[in-house]
């Protein structure tokens, strides 16, 4: 058997997640197909082995949450907290992602074909996020490490209270958040953008790296400042 499939309409979530928590046997196929997810929450959370999961349909909250190693591709939209706290591996959603996509991800790559909601990449800790469309307000909030690349626009307060995450923005931000500022793109930045787009694959390979701008931390909140007068 070269692949396993589950029908979420008839199989309990618990059974599927338990299946995906075990290590695949040496000879076992890594490919798992999940049909009719019906917006179920917590699908394929806590994977820690090299499964390759394909989902046909929409998923609810926290799909692929805390993923390690595994790959997941969703042909549909995703709810809040897609791939939250991902450690490694790769998660691709071809549709839209709701709020807090990739929140606090420590590693891995999250690719969102469409738009992402509020707080995309909030508290990012080393993961990379590539968004084909636009992102909502407060994206990159307090993001500490990793990259957030947005081909479209951003809402208000992009990169608010940013630490060391670098944001590459193709379109325009309605406003930048506290302590976020634009800095000139350098040659290594263009290479970084090109590499992120290449890793995202598909149509992303045709996007021009030349149209991105760079948003980083101004680092003025890094130290206690008696003269700040709460202006931030």
């Amino acid at each position, binding site marked *: 058997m070269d692949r396993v499939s589950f029908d979420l309409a008839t199989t309990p979530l618990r059974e599927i997640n338990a299946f995906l928590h075990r290590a695949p046997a040496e000879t076992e196929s890594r490919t798992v197909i999940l049909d009719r997810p019906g917006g179920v929450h917590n699908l394929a959370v806590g994977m820690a082995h090299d499964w390759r999961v394909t989902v046909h349909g929409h998923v609810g909250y926290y799909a692929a949450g805390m993923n390690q190693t595994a790959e997941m591709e969703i042909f549909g939209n995703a709810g809040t907290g897609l791939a939250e*706290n991902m450690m490694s591996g790769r998660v691709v959603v071809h549709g839209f992602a709701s709020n807090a996509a990739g*929140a606090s991800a420590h590693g891995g790559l999250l690719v969102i074909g469409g738009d992402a909601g509020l707080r995309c990449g*909030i508290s990012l800790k080393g993961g990379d996020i590539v968004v084909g469309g636009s992102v909502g307000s407060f994206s990159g909030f307090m993001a500490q490490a990793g990259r957030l690349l947005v081909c479209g626009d951003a809402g208000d307060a992009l990169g608010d209270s940013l630490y060391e995450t670098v944001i590459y923005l193709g379109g325009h931000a309605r406003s930048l958040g506290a302590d976020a500022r634009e800095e000139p793109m350098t040659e290594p930045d263009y290479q970084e953008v090109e590499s992120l787009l290449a890793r995202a694959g598909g149509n992303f390979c045709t996007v021009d790296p030349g149209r991105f701008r760079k948003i980083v931390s101004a680092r003025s909140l890094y130290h206690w400042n008696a003269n700040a007068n709460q202006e931030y």
Partner: protein
Amino acid sequence: MEKTADASRNLSLEESWGYDRKTMDYIRHAAAHGLYEIRGLGAKRKLPHFDDLVFLGASMSRYPLEGYRERCSTRTVLGTRFARKPVELEIPVTIAGMSFGALSANVKEALGKAATAMGTSTTTGDGGMTREERNASKILVYQCLPSRYGFNPEDLRRADAIEMVIGQGAKPGGGGMLLGQKVNPRVARMRTLPEGIDQRSASRHPDWTGPDDLAIKIRELREITDWEKPVYIKVGATRTYHDVKLAVHSGADVVVVDGMQGGTAATQGCFIEHVGIPTLAALREAVEALEDMGMKGTVQLVISGGIRTGADVAKALAMGADAVSIGQGMLVALGCNSGTWTDSGGRHQDAEADYRTLGTLPGYCHHCHTGRCPVGVTTQDPELEQRVTPETGAKRARNYLRTLTMELATIARACGKQDVHHLEREDLAALTVEAAAMAGIPLAGTRWIPGKA
């Protein structure tokens, strides 16, 4: 002395109540610095507390147990609602979440060893799980905090329970704070932050925004850990009655309520003293919420914030808590505010000069935020942290826990209970009108509970 007293009779020394010297000091400090005071520990002001309650003890109608002979069980089980592996404790006294970063690795290890020796649990904090603390702790509660510093599924699976932290009693509505001098290379690495920056943790969780979201988030944690581990929800004491109901709705196995006397390693002084309600009031509200929902006994309640003595533990249990959690008391056991620290040869070394450098004296210190703890408890300094070794620290912490347990059992036996969890409200009386009202316990010598008909 006589002379001064005589002389002062001729001076006009009418102090203002509203603008006393403390208040004027505060205003001058504000005027000089343009910045609020940051400090550690919890509320310092006098509040209605467990001291304002007494036990009634056995009498004509109740038999006491023999104080030294008869068995009095202290066994405590937390997380019986949904978890496949509830936490089983020998004593109802647990160690509260305090971060590696706020505390040294030695201290975290000492607390783990003491908890293990006494058959109770210890808790991680806003900096992730250290291997020292995991190895030393038989039962370790892993906190999921808004910052998610160092949060990862490996440690989640290694944990014995999970505590979703909404807030803490010292600063409900505020995030953690760790000033740059404590952000050494290891702390920085664990938190994915640059070294030496003043680190302010998030106060809101990144991936859920309300109790309905939280219910899904908790199911995620359960799914990831295959429904093995109890999930606690910790709230700072504010709207406790409603918060506890919502925590139960969100699917908690255990609710932890932290009153305003609860400590912190660093936050604004105005926050510590003016946000949140006393532990006594919060405990009664929490118990009422569980009783009104018919969840008492199904969802366990842990109370913290100013629990210091075995009598405090006994009163908390009598009011309806299943267990207590202690942070600041454990630090005092390790030497917090002591005038001396103990070197490797067991000799007491004077620490007063180090307190003076911080501008304070033993007994008054709340300078945890500076990282210059004179007794080596709340520090990341390689030299200072040697002032508490895992072994000596563990011994002191264990002795403290043992004393609390003996006191608790003594009171329970005197009230005729074979199990400390059999202590009940009817065993208590209140000494002040305030305590009677907050705790819902009759004023001693009366049947009066203010606010009740």
